[in-house]
C-alpha cells in the first residue's frame, strides 16, 4: 500500500469548536485587507480607524450600540426559527412591516399621550412583524412551501410597500418632496439615554434576550424546540405538534423583527424613511450564526456587527466607501460556513 494521506468526511463530526468562529473573523479581516491594499490604502490604518470609529469615542460607541439594537432583536428572532430548522430569511421584511405599522399608529392615531401611543406603537410593530412571519409559516405548514423562498419574497413586498407609503399617502407635505413621513412628536418617540442617540430600545432588546435565554433553556417549550431541532421525527414520536411550533415560532420570530422596526422609527429616525433599514434583517442572519443561536452570544455578535456598520461610516473620511463593512460581513459568513463544513473533514494517514 502507498503511504500518504487521505481525506475523509466524518459525518458524526461535532459542532465546530469556538475558535473556528474567531478564525473566521480573523480570516475575513485578512481577506478584506487584500482589497484595501488594492485600493492603495494601508489596511492597518483603515482597521484602526474603523475600530476607533466604532468603539473608541463615546459617540462611536453609542452609534455602535444604536446599530446593535435592531441586529440583536432581528438576530434573536431568526435564531429562534433556526433552532427548529425553519430558515427564516425574512427578518428584513418583518422589520419593515413593524416599522410601517408603528408609523401607521402615528398617522392614524395622532395626538395621543406617550403612555398610549408608545405601547400601541410597540404592539402594532410586534403584531405586524408577527403577521409577516405568519405569512411565511402558514404556506410552509399547510402546503409544504419552502420558507426560504416565501420569506425572501415577502421582503420585497415589504420594501415596495414601504416605498409606496413614503412616496405616496404618508409623505410629509412639508418635507420638500423628501420620501419620508412627518416627524414623530415627542410622545411618539422612545426615550433616549441623556442627549445621546442611544434609546430605550436597548432595554427592550436586552429584556428580550434574557427572556429568550430562559425560555430556551429552562421551559418545556424550549425543550420541545430543542427536540424538534435535533430530530423532528423523534419529536413526532413524543407527540409534539410540530406545525403548531412552526407557526408560533415564526410569529415570535417575525414579532421580534417587527419590534426592531418599531424601535428604529420611534427611537432613531423619528419618522419612516425610504431605505430605513441598511439591511439589518440580512445582517441579523450572520449575527445569529456567529453566535450559534445562543441568545447571549447574539448580544456580543450584534455589538460586533453594529461596530462594523458604524466603523464603516468612519472610514469614509479616508476616501473608502462604507461598503467595506458589507464586504467584511460577507467574508465573515463565508469563512464561518466554510469552517463548519471543513470541521467535518478529517485528514488521515493511510497505512
Amino acid at each position: 500500500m502507498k503511504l500518504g494521506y487521505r481525506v475523509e468526511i466524518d459525518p458524526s463530526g461535532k459542532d465546530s469548536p469556538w475558535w473556528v468562529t474567531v478564525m473566521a473573523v480573523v480570516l475575513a479581516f485578512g481577506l478584506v485587507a487584500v482589497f484595501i491594499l488594492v485600493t492603495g490604502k494601508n489596511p492597518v490604518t483603515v482597521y484602526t480607524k474603523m475600530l476607533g470609529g466604532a468603539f473608541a469615542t463615546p459617540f462611536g460607541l453609542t452609534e455602535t450600540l444604536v446599530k446593535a439594537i435592531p441586529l440583536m432583536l432581528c438576530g434573536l428572532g431568526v435564531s429562534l426559527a433556526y433552532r427548529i430548522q425553519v430558515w427564516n430569511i425574512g427578518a428584513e421584511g418583518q422589520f419593515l412591516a413593524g416599522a410601517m405599522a408603528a408609523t401607521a399608529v402615528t398617522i392614524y392615531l395622532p395626538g395621543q399621550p406617550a403612555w398610549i401611543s408608545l405601547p400601541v406603537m410597540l404592539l402594532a410593530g410586534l403584531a405586524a412583524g408577527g403577521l409577516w412571519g405568519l405569512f411565511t409559516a402558514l404556506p410552509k405548514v399547510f402546503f409544504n412551501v419552502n420558507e426560504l423562498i416565501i420569506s425572501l419574497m415577502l421582503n420585497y413586498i415589504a420594501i415596495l410597500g414601504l416605498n409606496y407609503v413614503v412616496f405616496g399617502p404618508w409623505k410629509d407635505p412639508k418635507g420638500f418632496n423628501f420620501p419620508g413621513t412627518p416627524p414623530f412628536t415627542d410622545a411618539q418617540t422612545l426615550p433616549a439615554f441623556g442627549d445621546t442617540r442611544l434609546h430605550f430600545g436597548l432595554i427592550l432588546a436586552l429584556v428580550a434576550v434574557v427572556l429568550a435565554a430562559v425560555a430556551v433553556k429552562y421551559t418545556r417549550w424550549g425543550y420541545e424546540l430543542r427536540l424538534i431541532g435535533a430530530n423532528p421525527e423523534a419529536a413526532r414520536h413524543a407527540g409534539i405538534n410540530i406545525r403548531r411550533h412552526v407557526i408560533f415560532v415564526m410569529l415570535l420570530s417575525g414579532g421580534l423583527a417587527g419590534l426592531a422596526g418599531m424601535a428604529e422609527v420611534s427611537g432613531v429616525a423619528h419618522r419612516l424613511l425610504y431605505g430605513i433599514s441598511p439591511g439589518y434583517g440580512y445582517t441579523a442572519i450572520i449575527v445569529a450564526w456567529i453566535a450559534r443561536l445562543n441568545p447571549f452570544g447574539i448580544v456580543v455578535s450584534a455589538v460586533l456587527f453594529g461596530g462594523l456598520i458604524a466603523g464603516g461610516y468612519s472610514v469614509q473620511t479616508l476616501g473608502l466607501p462604507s461598503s467595506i463593512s458589507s464586504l467584511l460581513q460577507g467574508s465573515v459568513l463565508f469563512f464561518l460556513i466554510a469552517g463548519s463544513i471543513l470541521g467535518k473533514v478529517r485528514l488521515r494517514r493511510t497505512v
Partner: protein
Amino acid sequence: MDDTLSVELRGLVKQFGTVLANDHVDFAVRQGEIHALLGENGAGKSTVMCMLSGVYRPTSGEIYLHGQLAKIHSPKDAMRLKVGMVFQNFRLVPTLTAAENIVLGESRPIWRTKGWMAKKTAEIEALATRFGLGFPAGRAIWQLSVGEQQRVEIVKTLYRGADLIILDEPTSVLTPGEADQLFETLRRLRDEGKTVILTTHKLKEVMAVADRISVMRKGKMLATLDKSATDEREVARLMVGQDRKEPRPRQNRPGGETLLWIKDLVVIGDHGRHALDQFSLKVKVGEIVGIAGVAGNGQKELAEVLAGLRSWKTGTITFRDHLWKGASVRHSIESGISHVPENRMKSGLAGSLGSVDNLLVKSYRSSERSKLGFLKTGKNRLWSQNLVEQFDVKTAHIDAPVHQMSGGNQQKLLFAREIHQRPHLMVAVHPTQGLDVGATDGVHNLLMALRDEGKSVLLISEDLDELLLLSDRTVVLFGGRAMGEVTHETADREQLGMMMAGVSASGESL
C-alpha cells in the same frame, strides 16, 4: 468448465465490518432458466445479487460468467458483461420520460435532436413489444404506475444488451395482478433465451414461476432444488431452518383479562393500499405476543397505529376497556403504551442531544418533571443519572450526545425511558436489530422482566429465534392479515415459515 452455466459463483464471501453477509456462497444458474433465490430478510440474497451486478465487490471468491472468470468491479463492468439488474427501488428519474430514462447514460451522440430521440423511442418500443412489455415510452416516469415503471427498468436492461437479468424482490411493490403479468414477462424472456434470477421470500411465487430454486439462510447457500422435485413444505423448512431453542422459562401464565383488542382494523399505508386488512388481534395482560412476518406486510403500520402516529380507516381498537376515538400520540403515551421504534436513531432518540434530554422525551410533560411550564432541571438531572446507572447505560457523561454511544447502550437508554413510563403495553419493533449477542440478551431480559411484572409486550420482529424464545403466542402477518398463530408450546418453525411465505396452516395460499 461447464458452459451451459450462465453464472457460477464459487466461495463468494462478503464482509461488512464485522458482519459476514455472505459466507462462502456457491451458486450456479443455467443458461435460459428462471432461477429463484429464496430466503428471509437478511439472509444475504441481495448482497449476492449486488456483487453480481457490480454494486459491491466480493471480499473473496470468484464469479464465472459463461465459464469465464469475470472481474465485475462496477455496474458498468456488469453491463459490459451483459448482466442487468432491476433493483427493488427503481433507479429512474421521475421527471424524464420512459425513453429518456432508458437512453440515459448513453455516451453518444452529444446532440440529441428530436429525430434521434424519435428513432430511439421507436427502437425501444419495438424491443418492448418483442418481450410483451408494453408501456407509454413518451410519458414521464412519475405518470406511470409502479408496474409500468418496473417494465421500464426491465427494458432498460434489455436495451443495454443484458442476457442475464437479475430482479431483486420484484413483486414486493406490485399488486397481485401486476405480479402475474410480470411472471408472464419473465417466462417470455426465458423463452427468448435470456436467463433470469429473482430474489423473493414468497413461496407461492417461487412455485409459480421458477425452474430451479436456491435457498439461503444467514449468509449461507443451503441448497439448489428443481421445482419439479420439491414442494412448498421442503422449501419452507430450508428457509427457516430446523434448529430450535428452548423458550425462556416463564414464571406465570398470562391472565385471562384482555388488555388490547383490535378488531377488523383496516389501515392505509404510505403506498396508498391496505397495509392492514381486516386485522384482528387480542393481547392479554401479562403476555408477550410476537408478530412475525417479512418486512412490509403491515408490521410497521400496526406499530404506528398503536403509538398514535397513524390513523385507521375502519375497525375498532379497545385498550384497557376504552374504545379509541382516533390516533393521538399523547393519548397513546398517557394511556400507557410505550413504543420502541424500529430505527432507534431515526425516530427514537435525538442523536445530538444528551442522555437527559433523551430520557425526558416521553415524560417531560408530567408534574414530576416540570411545573408551570418550567422543567425541574436539577431534579431531572438526578433522575437521569439514576436511570442511566440503573439500566447500566455506558456513557461518558449524561450530557454527552447520544450518537457517541454504542448501539447497545442507545437501546438501553431507550428502554430505560420507555420502561420508566410504567407502560401497560410495550410495542417493541425489531428491538435487537444491529445489537451484539450480549446486548441482545440484555434486551430479552428486560422484555421478560416486563412480562413477569404483569405487563404486556407486542414484539414485532423478523427474527424467528427471538420470537420463539420470548413470545407466549406468535401471530404471523402476511399481506396485512393474520395468517395464523402458534403458541410457544406448539411453536413449529416450519409452519411459521410457511405462513410467513403466504401459505396458511390449512395449506391454502393467499
